[in-house]
């Protein structure tokens, strides 16, 4: 039952994930709450990104959203239905719709299965296609992600990182999903290959009407791909805003610090600024009040004692900071890349034009010279 007009595809209500601590005979350690009472909506067809530094809980939140992890508290709704407690059969049906692309294409593909079998497997589970139909669809999907259909007979180790990520994407698409979560899907790839995979993800999103949830630490990738962005710190969302708004006028002091730390790829850009000292505190014993207060340049005594809630801050945005209004008055300049020189622009345009005329950029051409088995 899915009312097609509903614009929110996934919702969370105060979803929490606690990982239990160790229980030992002599020593026990407390649990960690990796995600703490997060409430957000994901809209149908958007690219929703979650950013934050390591240990902030972004990967855990992504897994909660598609029920790769059961929440310890709160609710996760998919198409309006709570998916926190489902039977196995219901879970299987859900998995068809909600797929995941992992960061490390080297460890997320079973090395003993052929690429064809890897991509076919979700179809066996989720569809009633015949063997021949499945084979045809495997070939289609391989071609669609820029690989040769003949690669179906080869094994994952025969491929480069970029190609393996394409295989992972083809596998995620095989069940005909509606939502794909990418957990750092391009961060293990080289710059030129990263651009290929980013473009591929964007094309596939349009073609298959997907909702994309993206986890990344690279703010330039986030900037390029997202519609809306949630910034996480120590298991909580501190700011949520549309892409342009967040980068043009970050409201939360943590978001502001992140923006200032981005290195700009131009020698004429502003220097990055070290406004955050110290490390992210351990989530085992999060600070009182606002979890960011020990590192926050604007913190007051209120911040140490009282936890700010995520509240509306203008169109489509929310921020969790006691002082965002006063801080916003002294806003910093938006993150900008200064314009390129005229001659550099001209050469970029030439490159773009001519590279589009090259044989379509497919990873299939990558291993042209290597011998491989044809069926």
């Amino acid at each position, binding site marked *: 039952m899915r009312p097609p007009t509903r614009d929110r595809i996934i919702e969370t209500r105060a979803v929490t994930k606690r990982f239990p601590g160790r229980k030992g005979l002599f020593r026990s350690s407390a649990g960690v709450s990796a995600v703490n009472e997060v409430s957000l909506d994901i809209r149908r067809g958007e690219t929703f990104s979650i950013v934050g530094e390591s240990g902030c809980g972004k990967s855990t939140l992504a897994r909660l959203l598609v029920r790769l992890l059961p929440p310890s508290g709160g609710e996760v709704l998919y198409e309006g239905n709570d998916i926190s407690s489902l039977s196995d059969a219901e879970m299987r049906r859900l998995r068809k719709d909600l797929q995941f692309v992992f960061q490390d294409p080297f460890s997320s593909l079973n090395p003993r299965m052929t690429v064809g079998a890897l991509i076919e497997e979700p179809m066996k589970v989720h569809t009633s296609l015949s063997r021949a139909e499945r084979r045809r669809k495997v070939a289609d999907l391989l071609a669609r992600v820029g690989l040769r259909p003949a690669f179906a007979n080869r094994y994952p180790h025969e491929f480069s990182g970029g190609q393996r990520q394409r295989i992972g994407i083809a596998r995620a698409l095989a069940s005909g999903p509606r939502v794909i979560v990418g957990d750092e899907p391009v961060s293990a790839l080289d*710059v030129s290959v990263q651009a290929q995979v980013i473009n591929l993800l964007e094309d596939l999103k349009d073609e298959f009407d997907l909702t994309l949830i993206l986890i990344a630490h690279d703010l330039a990738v986030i900037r390029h791909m997202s519609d809306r962005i949630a910034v996480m710190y120590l298991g909580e969302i501190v700011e949520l805003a549309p892409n342009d708004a967040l980068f043009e006028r970050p409201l939360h002091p943590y978001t502001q610090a992140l923006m200032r730390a*981005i290195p700009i790829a131009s020698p004429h850009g502003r220097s*990055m600024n070290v406004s955050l000292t110290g490390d*992210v505190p351990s989530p085992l014993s999060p600070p009182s009040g606002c979890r960011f207060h020990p590192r926050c340049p604007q913190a007051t005594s209120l911040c140490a004692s009282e936890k700010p809630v995520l509240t509306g801050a203008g169109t489509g945005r929310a921020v969790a900071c006691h002082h965002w209004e006063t801080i916003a008055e002294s806003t910093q300049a938006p993150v900008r*890349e200064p314009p390129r020189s005229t001659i*550099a622009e001209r050469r*970029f345009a030439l490159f773009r034009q*001519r590279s589009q005329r090259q044989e379509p950029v497919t990873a299939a051409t990558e291993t042209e*010279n290597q011998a491989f088995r044809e069926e």
Partner: protein
Amino acid sequence: MRPEREPHAAPVLSVDNLALRFKGAPANIIDGISFDVRPGETLCIVGESGCGKSVTALSLMGLLPRSVAQVMSGRAMFGDRDLLTLSQRTMADLRGNTISMIFQEPMTSLNPSYRIGDQIAEVVLRHRNVTGADARRRARDMLERVRIPAAASRLNDYPHELSGGMRQRVMIAMALANDPAVLIADEPTTALDVTIQAQIIDLIEELQKETGTALIMITHDLGVVAEIADRVCVMYAGHIVEDGPVETIFDDPQHPYTIGLMSSVPSVGPRSGRLATIAGMVPAIDDMPTGCRFTPRCPFAQENCALSPPVLDQHGPSHRAACHYAPLETVFAETGS
């Protein structure tokens, strides 16, 4: 402001026509590269994985066994000595002393079973004629200089007790403990979060300003390059395809690979359409293209590109690029809009 440069000072390290080949490989992994670095200068070596940037660093440090990586040609003059011909014993005297290196993953380069204070002191004791107490004092000073809070008590920590950023600070403290003339940093911030990366880059810049060390920074991140470099070498498949001052490389990129690399990086400014891409990927060593090694991926490639390797031509003051057709706009016209 960038650290003080001494543009006219003699290079502290001068690599000339270095070529390396792994035993049994059909082609050179490093194929005739040359670069200089001067006191106080930061040279960034940029390129994707497999382009040979780390191999270059390891060979300069004497960390590649010569039985495995054969020197096919070239010299690496460090003062009046050629690093490529020094004995292992002499190299061991230089390493960590006058030339040192920091790596991407500090956890794997620190010994997990020794206290960090002892590890730093060991580097000092190995190269200097000092007492244990002096070495330990030096270790504490170094931890303070890399801005580790409560340095004196941190000396007794084990590496696992430190965060990634702190470990990288310890690596830097160790690398700089003997005031090296050259510091090679291989992707030192790649494993770190963006705010920690900013701290480490800032620290490296400041310490460099204080000590006048020449820095060779290996990175794939053009943002880091723009932030820290004085001069840039762009490497592709074992060749330097372009080099020059950092402003020139960004404002007047000549080689199609440099141009492709820059236009395939997403911008942090407002979105401007699809990313440009470079077709295919870096070639494997057993599949090295002839002529210009970028030919199979180059959207401007012509027949002669695969036949004759281009040499580094001068395109301005200390700006060189290895492309038969640079500047591109003089050869290739934009097709109608």
